[in-house]
């Protein structure tokens, strides 16, 4: 891969007060790759994504998008970078006052300088891609959550971006529509050369679309990358946390089930006499 990376993140740190949410994140994404970012709830995946699109500014570190450092960029030049990528939000983030068609047309109207007939045609094409033909005149409040997410994807693809950021693209979708969205992502990246950065919890979908994966840690390793590699490398990764996560097991190194030992102490906030026998 001699070509310059589409996205390059170096030593990204973000602190909220005394809490460090991102702690020295570094990775690169090259053209045509699909990078899947995994990790438990609250590990900083969405915060990382917000930094990548320039909505949040890091405490330190560097983010280069299309070769341009965006961490200190003014709004004008940052907007020029933003026109080259699309983003699918976790909730869809559709404008409630606009119809589905107007939402998809919004980037075209604002940046495309196309005439109304062409915009109408592009909107129909993008809605067809996500299986929502004929829904142009519905308002977001009149369609389901999964449909809103697909409209969000159609809007993110409206300007044929070079890079697509997706935050949980398949959550709330049925298995068939999940496969359709995965196939669409795969087609756009592998056949048309688009690059994708996808944050997801859905392991089936992640292994289906990823060309590379990173996993963010929790607990003591909060905000760091604990595993990085191809889907095959992640499947056989020696880290027990990674294995617990990809297998979806309740018991393991990630302590989601708390010990029964100090149950009373947790409830009452006072230490109790040491138990005679340890139990779990």
């Amino acid at each position, binding site marked *: 891969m001699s070509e310059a990376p589409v996205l390059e993140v170096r030593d990204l740190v973000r602190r909220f007060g005394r809490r460090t949410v991102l702690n020295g994140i570094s990775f690169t994404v090259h053209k045509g790759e699909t990078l899947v970012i995994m990790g438990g709830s609250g590990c900083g995946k969405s915060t990382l994504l*917000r930094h990548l*699109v*320039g*909505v949040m500014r890091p405490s330190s570190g560097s983010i280069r998008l299309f070769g341009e450092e965006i961490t200190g960029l003014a*709004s004008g030049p*940052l*907007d*020029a970078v*933003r*026109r080259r990528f699309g*983003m699918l*939000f*976790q*909730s869809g*983030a*559709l*404008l*409630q006052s606009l119809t589905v068609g107007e939402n998809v047309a*919004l*980037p075209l109207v*604002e*940046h495309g300088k196309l005439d109304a007939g062409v915009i109408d045609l592009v909107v129909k094409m993008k809605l067809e891609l996500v299986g929502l033909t004929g829904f142009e005149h519905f308002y977001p409040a009149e369609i389901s959550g999964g449909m809103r997410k697909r409209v969000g994807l159609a*809007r993110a693809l409206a300007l044929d971006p070079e890079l697509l950021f997706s935050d949980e693209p398949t959550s709330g979708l049925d298995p068939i529509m999940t496969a359709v969205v995965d196939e669409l992502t795969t087609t756009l990246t592998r056949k048309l050369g688009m690059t994708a950065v996808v944050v997801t919890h859905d392991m089936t979908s992640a292994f289906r679309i990823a060309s590379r994966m990173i996993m963010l840690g929790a607990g003591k390793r909060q905000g760091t990358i604990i595993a990085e590699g191809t889907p095959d490398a992640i499947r056989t990764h020696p880290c027990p946390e990674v294995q617990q996560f990809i297998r979806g097991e309740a018991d393991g190194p990630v302590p989601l089930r708390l010990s029964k030992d100090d149950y009373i102490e947790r409830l009452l906030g006072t230490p109790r006499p040491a138990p005679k026998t340890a139990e779990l």
Partner: protein
Amino acid sequence: MKAYLSLNLRILYWVLLAPWTGRMFRISEVFRQTATIALRAFPMVALTAFSVGFTLAMQSATELRKLGGEMFVPDLVSVSLLRELGPVLIAVIVIGRSGSAIAAELGTMKVSEEVEALEVMAINPVRFLVVPRCLALLLALPLLTVLGNCIGIAGGWTVCRFFLDMTTPGFVLSALRSADAWDLYSGVIKSVVFAWIAGTVACNAGLGVEGGAAGVGRATTHSVVTGLLAMLVANAVLTAIFFVHA
């Protein structure tokens, strides 16, 4: 305060400078918002203005009758409404109704990531959301003030015509004797200033929302309270500038 001043400067930039560089705000949205604000507020404005004109005429008639000055009721009604009561009361209605609606709408858009989505799409939220709403208030509030003044004076006329046996030409001549064009203009100028305050305070409160539904509620209340206080202070300052001569 810093965020509020920054928002004011950004609005001025998008209204006065950006159109010269080819980055126009949405004119159609300005007219759509103007129509929405004016039409929805009009029934309340009309009822309030008529009621104020009517009660003002009744109260003044009762007192002026003791001095034999009933013929001055139209003068008092028209001057009071044009200079003070019309602009202030109608601004109170618009701040309470439309200002709160704008703060709640923008606040909801903020918490549901719509504002963030606009930023990521390289669409400036101030140009896209704030400017049309502020300009709409700048058009709608003076329009509602002029209409409200007319309806308020009609309320005063109702009392004079049917309870004081004054003729319509007599009422009109008497009303025009004291009130001049400057009274109308000063009221309209005040309403323009009040509209700017209402729009900027509401938009600033809406875009500053944090903390979900509770944050939207707080922002809405804040926009109404701050907007009303700022409007009343501005009214006192403008009255001093317009009518108090050394």
